[in-house]
């Protein structure tokens, strides 16, 4: 079916589906011929060669490729008409040209999420108030639901720009915490629901693309902004401590289910360090109660073949160590030393192909620790 549909018509259909802000987007192998039958008169056939069910969009890879090539030409032509930064903005853009620009850039970004120029064109349209930032956030959320897009730095950059832009547009300057600006890129969430939605989006992006570097970095930006907001005005948001506890608990559970995801480990350790550096006894207590060193040790005992967990156990003492010396000693003597002295070929845990053996991780832990404790050696 897809082969008989003309490229411009397919392209237009894709543009209209992307404009619906799909709940999820998935790139499917092939050209869609496997599931599309020309005699089919159901609703599903209306959207052929795409699958569009309950606002979930499936796009055959070959069809996307054809639509992309078409979009390149459309984008190039329409861009000559409007949106160059130096051009006069409000009211002078031809509405039809704006719609073509929005449509073609949406296909370019879906196919090539690092297409900086297409993303810039949309930022300019937001600045010109020709795209509502909320609609754009929704479009980017649709893209980030797809494994193909979820890891791309440029999409997360674009999202952060939108959140920061929206904060500056909606919040009067007096309500912005000190230090908020173009470079600080603090993100402000108007409501708890907005924040929870952002964290939900992030969790999904980290699930579809494991160790998702830019998603975890974005998560840290979000929670750091809350922290700095709280420090500027502690009485304003009494829920902060509840959110912080829920966040740390949630990520601890995440690590338990994703034992090779060091990005999550780095996130929780960095967030804890940030909170401890605030020198607030109250916040310190929140972190202490989470018992992260014990968490790291328990996980290493359970899954000693995972480098991410050994690093968790290696780095946690650098953050919480002075208060937890006894616990570390007990771990080293009862578990790490015996494991390190095992012959790796007889190890009971060498289940991870392509990775160092758990006894080697134990050996590394001991040698690194010896250096940290006795830097002169």
């Amino acid at each position, binding site marked *: 079916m897809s082969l008989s549909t003309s490229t411009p018509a397919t392209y237009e259909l894709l543009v209209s589906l992307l404009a619906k802000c799909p709940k999820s987007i998935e790139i499917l192998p092939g050209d869609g011929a496997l599931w599309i039958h020309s005699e089919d008169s159901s609703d599903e056939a209306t959207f052929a060669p795409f699958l569009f069910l309950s606002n979930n969009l499936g796009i055959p890879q070959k069809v996307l490729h054809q639509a992309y090539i078409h979009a390149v030409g459309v984008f190039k032509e329409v861009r000559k008409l409007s949106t160059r930064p130096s051009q006069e903005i409000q009211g002078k853009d031809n509405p039809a040209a704006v719609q073509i620009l929005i449509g073609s850039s949406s296909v370019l970004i879906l196919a090539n999420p690092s297409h*900086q120029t297409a993303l810039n064109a949309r930022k300019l349209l937001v600045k010109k108030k020709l795209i509502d930032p909320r609609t754009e956030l929704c479009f980017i959320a649709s893209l980030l639901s797809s494994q193909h897009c979820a890891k791309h730095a440029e999409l997360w950059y674009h999202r952060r720009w939108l959140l920061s832009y929206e904060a500056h547009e909606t919040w009067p300057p007096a309500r912005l915490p000190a230090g908020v600006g173009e*470079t600080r*890129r603090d993100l402000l969430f108007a409501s708890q629901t907005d924040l929870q939605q952002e964290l939900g989006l992030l969790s999904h992006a980290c699930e579809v693309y494991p160790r998702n570097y830019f998603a975890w*970095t974005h998560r840290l930006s979000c929670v750091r902004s809350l922290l700095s907001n709280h420090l500027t005005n502690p009485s304003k948001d009494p829920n902060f401590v509840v959110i912080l506890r829920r966040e740390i608990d949630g990520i601890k559970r995440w690590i338990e289910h994703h034992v090779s995801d060091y990005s999550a480990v780095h996130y929780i350790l960095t967030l804890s360090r*940030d909170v401890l550096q605030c020198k607030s006894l109250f916040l310190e207590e929140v972190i202490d109660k989470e018992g992260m060193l014990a968490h790291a040790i328990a996980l290493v005992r359970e899954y000693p073949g995972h480098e991410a967990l050994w690093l968790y156990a290696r780095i946690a003492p*650098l953050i919480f160590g002075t208060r937890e010396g006894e616990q570390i000693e007990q771990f080293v003597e009862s578990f790490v030393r015996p494991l390190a002295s095992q012959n790796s070929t007889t190890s009971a845990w060498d289940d991870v192909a*392509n990775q160092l053996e758990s006894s080697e991780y134990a050996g590394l832990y001991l040698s690194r620790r010896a250096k940290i404790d006795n830097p002169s050696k």
Partner: protein
Amino acid sequence: MGHQDALDREEMIGFVMSCWDDEAGGFGAHPDHDAHILATLSAIQVLVTQDALDMLDVDRVVKFILSLQQPSGVFAGDSFGEVDTRFLYIAVNALSLLGRLSELDVEKAVAYIRQCQNFDGGYGATAGAESHAAQVFVCVAALAILDRLDVVDQETLCWWLSERQLPSGGLNGRPEKLEDVCYSFWVLSSLSILNKITWIDSEKLTAFILSAQDLETGGIADRPGDMVDVFHTHFGVAGLSLLGYPGLVDLDPVYCMPASIIEAKGLKRKWKALPRRSE
């Protein structure tokens, strides 16, 4: 590889100049694309390699780059302001190649890199971001150009870098990721700048890179059996050069350009690769 005439010089320079964004004063990735600091460095590197810097409006490019430094010391990629230590390295590298490093606020740039250091000794894309071998390269190489390697926790960082080597001999960029040929450059360049290239098993790494080569087309893939591409071919060859592989010219790990060009410009920093083998 000693075949600098394999591509037509005039055509290459012509393409680079067709990517000039006159409104911004920088280069885009392709004709009609917006200027970005990433493509701007690539353009400068190509022009330097082809000895064609006279084509460039150096003052305008320097102005474009300097306009992107933020109050924290880091650089943005373009006027929209997203920051990354990659952009900082690019600014330092480009200004250095153009002989205009003296116009940079070095203290602020170094201060930002210091903020990016993690407990494992590595560096990330922004302050607080996870250590990543490619981000380690950009931070270490920028510090090398600025002659400020004293701020690096060298031993902790080199442990972390050496732990990137997997039993296959290949290197990964972060814990528990798959090995990938491109990290041969990101990791080796940092180790080479810090004079610790012997901390990884060079024979096993050489064998891994060679095993990712497609012997029919000649290119190198991310790992054995995958489709080859220019990106991995470039970084595979760069890694082999640092490993002393026979028949290759020396690569400067700080600038990722032929060492002779950097030396001729008087920009060589201290670094140590493995000695070139004769066969």
